[in-house]
C-alpha cells in the first residue's frame, strides 16, 4: 500500500468493504460510480490519516487525558473539553506523509477540471465540499447521524488541509462526546474519515423523471433544464427547457425551449452562489445539446434499471469537467405519483383490431392549418 492510498482513496476505489476506512458517504459514492452513475468527483481522507495524526507525537494520549472525568450531563464542562481538544488538533501540524497525500489528492482533482488554473500563489482555485464521516471500528452499523459536518466553498489546498483538521476535531464536539458516553462507545475506538468532493459548477442543471410525468408514459424520460445551478428549476424561478426523450429508441421526441431569464452561478472567489440575469443569446437558446440530452437519458435509464423502479433525478452539466464526464447525477429518489398506481388502459376492453381499423378510418386527420384542435396522426410528425 502506497502512502497515498493508505491515507486517501478516490471515490471510485471506495469499495463496500472500506466503510470502516472511509465511511458510508464515500463507499456510497464509490458504488454509484462503479454502477455507471457519474457523481461529482473527489476522494476520501481515510481513518488511517486520522489515526496517524493522533498517533503522531502522543496526541491520542493527550486527548484521553483531557477526556478523563468528563461528565455527559455537564454541558459547560463538555464545551470546555471540546474546545481544548479541538485546538490541540487544529494547532498541531499534520504528519508530513498525510499532508503530502492530501495535497496530491487535491491536485489530482484539480487536474480533472480543465477550467481551473493555478493561482499566483501556487495554489488552485477549485472549490470543494469537505465532509466528516465518523466510523466505529467495532460497530460498523453505529449511527452517527446528525454529527457530520459539511464545509462548502473550501478553496485552495491550505483551506482544504485546515478543514480536514476541523473535520477531525468535530469528532470531539460536546454533542459527539456526550453521544458516545451515553451509548457506551469508547472514544478511542471511533475514527474520522473526511470526504472531499468537487463542488458542482453547473453550466446547466435540472431535474428529470424516468417517465413522462404528464401522462405516466414509461417509455419516456422527461428533462427540465435551465442554465446554471439547479436551484432555479427546483424553485420554479425560471420556465425551464423541456425535453422529452423516447428512452427505448433513445431518440429525442420533443424539445420545448423556453426563455430563461435568470441563473444561479457559483462565484468561487466570493465563495457563494449568485443570482444572475441572463442577458445574452443564451436566454432563448437550448441549455442542453442533443448529445447531452441523450447522455442524460441513458443515465436516467440506467439508474431506473438499477433501482428497478421509476426515479426522480437531479443532475448537472459541470462546466469544469470534460465531456463525457461532465454530466453529473446529484440526487436520485423514487418517483411516487405514477409508480404507485396501475397503468391506465388506453384500450376499450372489447375492441378488436377490426374495430380499431374502422375507428381509425372514421377519425381521419384534422387538417385545417392553424386549427388548435389539430389532431395529428398518420404520417404526421
Amino acid at each position, binding site marked *: 500500500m502506497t502512502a497515498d492510498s493508505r491515507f486517501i482513496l478516490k471515490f471510485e476505489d471506495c469499495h463496500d468493504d472500506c466503510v470502516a476506512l472511509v465511511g458510508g458517504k464515500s463507499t456510497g459514492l464509490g458504488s454509484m460510480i462503479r454502477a455507471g452513475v457519474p457523481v461529482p468527483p473527489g476522494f476520501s481522507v481515510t481513518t488511517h490519516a486520522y489515526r496517524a495524526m493522533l498517533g503522531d507525537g502522543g496526541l491520542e494520549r493527550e486527548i484521553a487525558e483531557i477526556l478523563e472525568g468528563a461528565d455527559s450531563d455537564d454541558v459547560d464542562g463538555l464545551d470546555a473539553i471540546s474546545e481544548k481538544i479541538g485546538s490541540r488538533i487544529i494547532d498541531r501540524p499534520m504528519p508530513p506523509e498525510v499532508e503530502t497525500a492530501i495535497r496530491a489528492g487535491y491536485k489530482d482533482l484539480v487536474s480533472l477540471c480543465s477550467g481551473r488554473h493555478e493561482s499566483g500563489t501556487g495554489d488552485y482555485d477549485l472549490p470543494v465540499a469537505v465532509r466528516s464521516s465518523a466510523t466505529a471500528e467495532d460497530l460498523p452499523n453505529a449511527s452517527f447521524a446528525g454529527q457530520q459536518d459539511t464545509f462548502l466553498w473550501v478553496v485552495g489546498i491550505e483551506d482544504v488541509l485546515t478543514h480536514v483538521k476541523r473535520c477531525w476535531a468535530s469528532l470531539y464536539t460536546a454533542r459527539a462526546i456526550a453521544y458516545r458516553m451515553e451509548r457506551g462507545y469508547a472514544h478511542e475506538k471511533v475514527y474520522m474519515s473526511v470526504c472531499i468532493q468537487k463542488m458542482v459548477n453547473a453550466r446547466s442543471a435540472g431535474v428529470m423523471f424516468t417517465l413522462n410525468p404528464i401522462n405516466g408514459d414509461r*417509455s419516456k424520460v422527461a428533462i427540465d433544464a435551465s442554465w446554471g445551478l439547479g436551484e432555479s428549476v427546483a424553485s420554479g424561478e425560471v420556465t425551464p427547457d423541456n425535453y422529452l426523450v423516447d428512452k*427505448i*429508441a433513445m431518440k429525442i421526441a420533443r424539445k420545448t425551449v423556453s426563455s430563461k431569464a435568470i441563473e444561479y452561478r457559483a462565484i468561487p472567489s466570493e465563495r457563494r452562489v449568485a443570482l444572475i440575469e441572463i442577458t445574452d443569446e443564451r436566454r432563448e437558446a437550448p441549455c442542453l445539446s442533443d448529445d447531452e440530452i441523450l447522455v442524460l437519458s441513458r443515465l436516467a435509464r440506467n439508474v431506473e434499471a438499477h433501482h428497478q423502479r421509476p426515479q426522480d433525478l437531479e443532475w448537472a452539466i459541470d462546466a469544469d469537467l470534460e465531456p463525457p464526464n461532465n454530466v453529473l447525477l446529484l440526487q436520485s429518489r423514487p418517483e411516487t405519483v405514477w409508480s404507485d398506481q396501475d397503468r391506465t*388502459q388506453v384500450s376499450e376492453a372489447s*375492441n378488436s383490431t*377490426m374495430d380499431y381499423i374502422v375507428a381509425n378510418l*372514421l*377519425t381521419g*386527420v384534422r387538417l385545417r392549418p392553424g386549427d388548435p384542435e389539430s389532431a395529428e396522426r398518420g*404520417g404526421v410528425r
Partner: protein
Amino acid sequence: MTDTRFPNPFDVPTPEGCEGWEDLYPYYYLFSEERRELEESKFWFFDGMHHPEVLYPFDTITSESWWVALGEMNSRVYIVPPALGIDHRVLNGRLYISANAITDEAVVGARVAHFMERAGYYYEHWDELYAKWQDKARETIEELKAVEIKPLPEMEDIEVVHSGRGLTSAYDLLVAYNRVVENMHKIWHLHFEFLNLGYAAYLTYFGFCKQLFPDIPDQVVAQMVAGIDVLLFRPDAELKKLAKKAVELGVGDAIRDEPDPDAVISVLEQSDAGQRWIAELEKAKDPWFYFSTGSGFYHHHKTWINDQTFPFSGIADYIRKIEAGESIERPLDDVIAERDRLSTEYASLLDGDDLKNFNEQLGLARTVFPFIEDHNFYVEHWHHAVFWNKMREFGQIFVDAGFFEEVDDMFYLHRFEVEAALYDLIASWGVGTAARGPGYWPKEVARRKVLFAKLAEWQPLPALGEPPEVVTEPFTIMLWGITTDSIQNWLGIDAAEGADYDLSGFAGSPGTVEGVARVILNADELSDVQEGEILVCPITNPSWGPVFSKIAAAVTDIGGMMSHASIVCREYGVPAVVGTGFATQRIKTGQRLLVNGAEGTVKILE
C-alpha cells in the same frame, strides 16, 4: 399566417407558349365548366411523388390505371366507410389529385358493416391471399410477355388459308394493342387489391402506438415492422452477388475499369471465367433487372434490362469496395435485432388489453407489410419494364410505316389516339391506299414536343383549392404525407422564426450528417453522385440501390415516412429528410448541408 387556400384551378393561367396543351390529354382529365362547381369545391394537390414530370399523353395510362383501381377498391369492393377514390386532373401538363371523402354520417355508418365483413376477410386470410396474389401478378406479367406484336406482312401466310383461320395480322395487331392496354389495367387492379387494406392496418397500428406512447417517434413505429428482407432490395443484392462473383472469378478488373457494358461483355466472352460470370449475370437478369431507375410511371424511365450502364456501374462500385476491404452487406441483421428489441421493450411496458391489442396490431402490421414493401417490384418495376417495351414494339411498327420518326414519338399520343393511328394503319394496309398518319403525325408530334418543352418550364403549384378539414383517405396520409405542416409549408408559411434550419420535412430515417449536396433531377444524372455526398432530389426510387450505399444522406421534395425513400434509407442506415417541399429549388449542388434525419430538418451551411 398568409392565405389559407390555394389558387382556384380555373384561375391558373396557361403559361406562355402552352396554349392548346389541353388537346394532349383525354377530355375527362381536364378541369371543365361542366364540373366547375364540384372541382372548385375540392382540394387538389400536385402528385409530384408519382408524376413529378409533365405527363406524356400516352403515359397518362399509369395515372388512369390507379385512378380507377385505387378508387374502386375503396368505394366498390371493400366499402371503406368514409372514403371513395382519389380523383385525377391534369393542369398545365401536371397531375393534380384529390381524395373523395364521404361526409354524410348515415352513409358512412351504413358502409361499416360491409367493410368489416370484406376487409375482415382479407386480413384474416392475408397470407393465403397474398400467396395467391403473387401467382396472379406473375401470371399477369407472363400474359403480357406472351402478347405477340407482329408487323403487317405484304401477304398473309398460306397457313391462314390452310387452317381456315379467317383472321388476319391486322386483327391480331388490334387485339394485341388492346391486350397490352388491358394488361396494364389488370396489374393495377391487383396493385390495389391489397394496398389500401395494408395501409389501413398499418395506420391503425401507428395510431395505437401514438396513443400508448404519446410522442413516440414515427420512424420507431415503422422500425418495429420493417426489416423483413424485401423484394425491392433483391436487385441491389444481386449486384452485390455479381460483384463478389467477379472478384472470386478474377474478372473484377474488367468490369471495374470499363464503363461500357457491351465492351465489358465482349472482353469477358474471351475467357472461361468471364463466360461463367456472364452466365451468372443472365441468371440474375430475369426478373431482377426488370427494374426502373425512376418510378416506372413514365416510358422514358430507364430500366436495367434496357440499359445496363446503371447496374454495371453499381457492380463496379461494389467491386471497388470489396477490393478496399469494405463490407457491402446491408446491416439487415442489425435492423431485425433492433426491430425485435424495440417491440419487446415497448411491449414490456404494457399489460392487460393494451398489451393484447398492441401485440395484435403489431402482428397485423407485420403481416401486411411484406405486400406494402414488395408490390412495387412486381408492378412498377417488373411489369412496367415489360409494358413499355411492348408498347415500343408498336412504336417500331409505326416508325416503319412512316407515322413517326422515332419509336418513342408514339408516347406523345394518348392511348386512344394510338388506337386511332393503329386503325389508320390497318385500314390502309387492308385497303391498299395511303394512311393519313405519315402526313399527319410527324408534324403533330413536332408541335407537341415544342409544347411539351414549354410545359416542362412551368413550376407546378403544390396545391389548388381549399384544404379540407379532414382527410380520411389512407394513402393521402401515409404516402403523400398531407398534413397540417406540409400544407402550411406549401402555403409559404415559413418555419418558426429563428428556427435553426432552412427546410423541414418528415424524419424519414434517423441520423445527423454534414456533407456536400448533389441535386439530382432525374435518374440519368445519378452517375454524377460522388461517394459521401448528400443526395437532394424530387423523390428517390428503390432501384437507386447502389447510390444509397454511396451517399451520406438523402433529402427529397416529396414523400412521407412510408415513401420509398424513407423505407430504403432506413434499411441502408442512411439519414433522410423527406417531403421538404422545396429542397431541389432551394439547394444547389456543392452547398454544405446539415441533415438531421431524426428531427426532419435540413440546414444550408454555405
